């Protein structure tokens, strides 16, 4: 077996054979009957359907609930690679929390002239309501899902910081569960670091961030926008696994300065709210007045120190794509260390000279909306037609500040399983990071998303991406 791609393949070597972490897996795989594997793949799909591991796609009435395709070839990461990655992520997440505290308090980084003031002041993700307030435990981003891409043996880049409400962790857990059920023998042959402690750790980590005046057995709950939300499965999955209530805005009310949920026995106070509702919708009294998803007055309870909101409102200012290009400076400013993980070179279209360069090289670049997510509203230059490029150029000229551009990275590939054999496909990686006053905990592995279409660089599930189980090997 050898790699048939010009990109860095994480499993197959260009010469012949596989990279080290895949040695044992390869031995197992070459003894497997492809038709048995094809059958297993079908079984996995039926299992996902039956258990309801689905997501909703907005604007697609007919296919309201869809499966994220699961590929049964695991993505394997060596312990050495992981150690470096996790150190880099930890450093970055630490810096992000210090940055957020600074931005909402003394703003030293603005005074030092490292980030232009306008970028903060005129940013929708910046919440003036957070000024002068420190969240319980001084933690802003309780949960982070750092998106990592790889282009070579030792070349890891952070693509996005996802410091608001990253999703996908349920797939990390269910993918592993599925692999354990389908191929138990693989886990006795390979020493794979477990991920199953995540829900327990999440609960503990959230509880450690409870308000100071909260009693020992504090009450945690998850706030969901409801069953029509695209990530509802994940919300209920996490609530179930953590053993906490899954609440919606209309279950909650401010009572005596606390947030309380309506139970069969009256109202019960909540100490920590892991909200999967965006800032804008969190509190109609403080943000969007028409929101039905939030709790009127929760910001006042929050500022009075009577509830922990995870992640803190206003963390979006740290994962904004315009701020992203400053991340190396941010890391250095707060930690005094050189960043361990690289940033992808980023062109800020708001700067006239840069815009000119971007427009001239549009066909080679990836252009993203500053506030966009989910792979919507982006241009992948090399994959776009001339007409699409020209159309995008117009949008860009009209509102340059709304866009950033990046070189098209040669993302690494990992093979996916096809009946005809292995086929290389581009991947990224989203490890999940928990932050509490006690420290930063990163679950070994994360969610590997894979672009199922040949040559495609877009891994988002809303755009037809799939997932893989991600293994971090013990030494």
């Amino acid at each position, binding site marked *: 077996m050898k790699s048939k791609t010009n990109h860095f393949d994480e499993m197959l070597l260009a010469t012949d054979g596989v990279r080290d972490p895949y040695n044992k897996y390869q031995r197992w795989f070459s003894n497997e009957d492809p038709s048995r594997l094809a059958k297993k793949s079908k079984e996995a799909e039926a299992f996902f359907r039956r258990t*309801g591991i689905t997501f909703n796609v907005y604007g697609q009435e007919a296919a309201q609930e869809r499966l994220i395709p699961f590929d049964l070839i695991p993505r394997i990461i060596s312990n050495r690679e992981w150690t470096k990655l996790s150190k880099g992520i930890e450093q970055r997440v630490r810096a992000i929390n210090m940055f957020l505290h600074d931005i909402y308090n003394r703003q030293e980084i603005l005074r030092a002239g490292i980030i232009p003031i306008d970028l903060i002041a005129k940013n929708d993700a910046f919440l003036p309501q957070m000024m002068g307030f420190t969240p319980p435990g001084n933690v802003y981003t309780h949960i982070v899902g750092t998106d990592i891409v790889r282009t070579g043996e030792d070349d890891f880049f952070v693509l996005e910081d996802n410091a608001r409400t990253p999703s996908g962790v349920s797939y990390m857990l269910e993918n592993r569960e599925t692999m354990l059920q389908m191929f138990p023998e693989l886990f006795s042959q390979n020493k794979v670091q477990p991920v199953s402690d995540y829900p327990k750790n999440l609960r503990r980590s959230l509880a450690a961030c409870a308000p100071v005046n909260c009693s020992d057995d504090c009450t945690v709950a998850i706030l969901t926008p409801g*069953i029509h939300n695209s990530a509802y499965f994940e919300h209920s999955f996490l609530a179930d696994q953590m053993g906490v*209530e899954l609440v919606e805005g*209309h*279950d909650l009310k401010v009572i005596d300065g606390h947030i309380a949920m*309506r139970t069969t026995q009256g109202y019960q106070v909540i100490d920590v709210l892991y909200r999967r509702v965006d800032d804008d919708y969190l509190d109609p009294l403080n943000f969007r007045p028409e929101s039905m998803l939030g709790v009127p007055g929760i910001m006042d309870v929050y500022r009075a120190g009577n509830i922990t909101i995870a992640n803190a409102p206003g963390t979006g200012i740290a994962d904004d794509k315009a701020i992203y290009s400053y991340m190396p400076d941010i890391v250095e400013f707060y930690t005094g260390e050189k960043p361990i993980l690289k940033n992808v070179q980023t062109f800020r279209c708001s700067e006239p000279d840069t815009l000119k360069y971007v427009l001239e090289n549009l066909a080679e670049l990836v252009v993203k909306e500053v506030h966009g997510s989910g792979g919507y509203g982006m241009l992948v230059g090399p994959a776009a037609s001339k007409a699409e490029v020209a159309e995008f150029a117009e949008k860009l000229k009209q509102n340059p500040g709304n866009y950033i551009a990046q070189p098209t990275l040669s993302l690494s590939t990992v093979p996916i399983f096809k009946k005809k054999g292995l086929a290389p496909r581009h991947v990224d990686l989203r490890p999940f990071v928990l932050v509490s006053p006690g420290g930063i905990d990163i679950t070994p592995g994360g969610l590997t998303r894979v672009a199922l279409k040949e040559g495609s660089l877009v891994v988002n599930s809303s755009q037809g991406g799939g997932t893989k189980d991600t293994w971090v090997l013990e030494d």
Partner: protein
Amino acid sequence: MLGKTAGGLYWMFRFLERSENTARLIEAGFRIALTRSRDSDSEWKSVVTTAGVRAGYDAKYDTYTAQHVVDYLLRDTSNPSSVMCAIENARTNARMVRTALTTEVWEAVNENWMAMKAALKKPIPETDLPALLGEIRRHSALVRGALHGTMLRNDAYDFAQIGTALERADNTARIIDVKYYTLLPSASFIGSAMDNVQWETILRSVSAHRSFRWLNANEMTSSGIAEFVILDSRFPRSLYFASRTIRANLGYLEKDYGATMPCHALIDQQVTKMRQHTIASIFEGGLHQFIGDFLRSNNAIGAQIQLDYRFDG
């Protein structure tokens, strides 16, 4: 437990029970239509009436044909009580309260929905109807089995049981309400051929034709049947049995939560009242009147439970 969760469990099991009851009504109607083709239109009409969807049906169709009625009750998404809608509603509620369900219960509900969505995609030809109705009953039995076999006997279980029993009582009472005149004592001791068919429909609609025969050998009388479906303490779909189930589960909640609520007084009244009755005293006061009172009382209990356990609105 969240009030919303209690409500989700309660409604999930009401809808599940409703889907099964509707399937059973269709089954009974279908059987009569096969054996007595001449009267089948009026029979289908009373099926629609019993299902409580007359207004919706009449707005859509002018006549009561097997094809239309079966389609309306099975798969019409504009009919909120159709089997498809009920199953869909049960599953939506289950998704909402998934944290309160075991994996087994959730999967059974989800599989039910997946199977029915596929099976009810197109109109059901007559030849496939019996198998399909059997499938509906089997799926709802699977959910119930998972509930009994895997759920903790706590408040979640109580709300599930209460939802089932309330819906069941409502369904049995409506069946009697629509057919009450066929149960009124007639001059003849033994029912006419016509009566026999009607009585059999009632028994089949509540899956009681076998158990009734087994208990009563060949003694098929109107008062025997009425007594069985109203007052029998062994038959799980009788009004008395369902009411006792509601009372028992409300009693567990009372003990568990350490709080007596207004709904407890209401259900006590209902059970006590039934215990004081004999079938003769019911006929004396008027069967129709009795069933009407029961339906109102049953609804009031349902409303009070929603209020007491905070899942109203």
